[in-house]
């Protein structure tokens, strides 16, 4: 267990600035997921933490010691690569043993560590094989074994599951989570898959174009995205963004947006759950009203009466997309398409009007100019 601190780290390749000032602070035992689209600099950051890439500016600190000039082998870090990067000329056993051998671990000790790791990952029966004779999932396990066997201070994972098929990916995800619970080692894990990030992380850093857009626990990233980009990247389907105006409503505030129902266009006002003081300057101004699809559901009297901030309104249905558990219902709110999660037994045909319910306790408001959360 080691804590990891990244202080305002930058990376440039000539004139291309790949990382533009990354800072994060991670306690020992945390599971940080770097989440972002490909090309945003996730691997570059990971390579710099590992010491495989030089740092243009800034500091990387492990357990209070600046490691910028420390050779990768002396950082006590292990990494699992996207391509698995197994040594093709060595058997599974030699692959796992190589790091121990290079570090001068005696032979008997090596044997013991290898068999313990192989047991943990259930790869005992593969020890004599070459990487070419393994399936994708088995290679993945061996790559993890090679990292685990050294019992390093920090694990780095670079998109370790992206080459596996969907079913195996879900299984391995669970296993990585179990391993982390069991070993408690600090992990930095790169992925572009937001579901992986949500399920594994204790902290998520959402990255875009070489900067961290938000660094927070998964639930916070999901419920209170720092900006529209994060809201749109995390969650499937993504957050709905409704162009709206903030208006006075009783002694509070409400979002007002256009919505067609029963063949006539009209405005809908939804009162905010906590119209705090900070929102006062925004009155009568344009905002973006963000609402997760699961907070926009079919109207249900029983539930509406329990949930204090649930408000009903009528809206014309455009498209239906059944997914099994819910039917995704596309509606037009304020000129933008929004998605509601509707109980499949209570759907309405496209073109007809249906009564929807918005849970305003999950509402987010964004500045239309900066796209930041208000």
């Amino acid at each position: 267990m080691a804590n990891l601190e990244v202080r305002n780290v930058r990376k440039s390749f000539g004139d291309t600035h790949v990382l533009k000032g990354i800072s994060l602070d991670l306690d020992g035992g945390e599971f940080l997921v770097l989440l972002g689209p490909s090309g945003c600099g996730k691997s570059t950051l990971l390579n710099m933490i590992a010491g495989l890439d030089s740092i243009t500016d800034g500091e990387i600190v492990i357990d209070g010691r600046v490691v910028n000039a420390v050779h990768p082998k002396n950082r006590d870090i292990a990494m699992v690569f996207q391509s698995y990067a197994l040594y093709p000329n060595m058997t599974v056993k030699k692959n796992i043993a190589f790091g121990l051998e290079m570090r001068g671990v005696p032979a008997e000790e090596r044997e013991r560590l290898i068999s313990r790791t192989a047991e943990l990952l259930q790869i005992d029966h593969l020890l004599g094989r070459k990487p070419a004779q393994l399936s994708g999932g088995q290679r993945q396990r061996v790559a993890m074994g090679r990292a685990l066997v050294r019992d390093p201070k920090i694990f780095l994972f670079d998109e370790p599951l992206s080459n596996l098929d969907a079913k195996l990916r879900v299984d391995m995800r669970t296993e990585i989570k179990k391993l982390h619970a069991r070993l408690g080692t600090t992990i930095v894990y790169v992925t572009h898959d937001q579901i992986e990030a949500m399920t594994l992380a204790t902290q998520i850093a959402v990255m875009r174009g070489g900067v961290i857009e938000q660094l927070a626990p998964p639930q916070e990233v999901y419920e209170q995205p720092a900006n529209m980009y994060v809201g749109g990247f995390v969650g499937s389907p993504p957050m709905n963004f409704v162009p709206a105006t903030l208006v006075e409503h009783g002694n509070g505030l409400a979002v007002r947006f256009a919505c067609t129902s029963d063949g006539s266009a009209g405005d809908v006002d939804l009162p905010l759950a906590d119209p705090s003081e900070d929102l006062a300057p925004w009155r009568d101004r344009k905002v973006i009203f963000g609402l997760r699809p699961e907070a926009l559901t079919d109207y249900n009297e029983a539930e509406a009466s329990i949930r204090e901030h649930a408000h009903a309104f009528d809206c014309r249905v455009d498209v239906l997309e059944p997914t099994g558990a819910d039917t995704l219902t596309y509606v037009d709110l304020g000129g933008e398409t929004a998605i509601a999660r509707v109980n499949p037994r209570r759907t309405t045909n496209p073109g007809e009007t249906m009564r929807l319910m918005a849970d305003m306790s999950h509402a987010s408001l964004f500045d239309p100019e900066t796209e930041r959360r208000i």
Partner: protein
Amino acid sequence: MPADTTVTSSDAETGVRGWLQRHLSKLVVAPSFLAAVIFFYGFILWTVYISLTGSRMLPDYELIGFDNYLRIWRLSRWETAFDNLFIFGVLFILISMAVGCVLAVLLDQRIRAEGVLRSIYLYPMAISYIVTGTAWKWLLDPGIGLEKAMHDMGWTSFSFGWINDPDMAIYTVVIAAVWQASGFVMAMVLAALRGVDDEIIKAAWLDGASLPNIYRRIIIPTIRPVFLSAFVILMHLAIKTFDLVMALTAGGPGTSTAVPATFMYDMAFQRDRLDFAATSAVMMLATVAAIIVPYLYSEIRGPRRG
């Protein structure tokens, strides 16, 4: 009905046109296949046959058994040719491989102007052996080449006359051949080095391996098939060497740089000994086959490398 139309058209395809369509590819390949069978394999068999006869200037089809294969070893010229092939082959292969590997490892450090350097190293391979031989003949000629250049520059004690020295002339053939082939080895090895996944090398760094260890334990074993391919190609080039020697030294001074291929040529066209020529040709073929057949077999039948 549409179904009827289909039946009629498939009927037509059973006719001459249909037959042609099905067999056209075979017909097109047949002439070159036939030529290959006659001119390669037919003449190989003919040469083997001649080597078992007592032919002189013209073929004589009376078999005399394997006598030629014993008698050829009593010829001092064959012995020279054989020794030269051994010296030349070993040095040529070892030095070309070593120089090629060093160049490849150096170029692999992602230096500037790599593209230009790579082409420069590779160009000699594109030149015919006759040109290489002629160019090196001039370069090594004491009267007009390197030695004269050094003398003109004021280093009058410089002397480099290997090409006229019966004991050393074979090494000039090695120099010219290495110059020609090491760029090719470099290209093969460099391609293989580039084929090694970057992440594998990163993983080795993290595993605590030093650079020599990474090359020795991971990269070189990974690209070993390339060394084998390069070895086989150089080996058969060495055994076939003919034009380079003809252009550079013409087998001389005397017969000091004779190799099996020049021996064969001399016997067939100058000494009127078709039997010895055929015998040496068969022995060269057997040597090449002894190397290439197992190689091809292991390439085709061997386990797939993944």
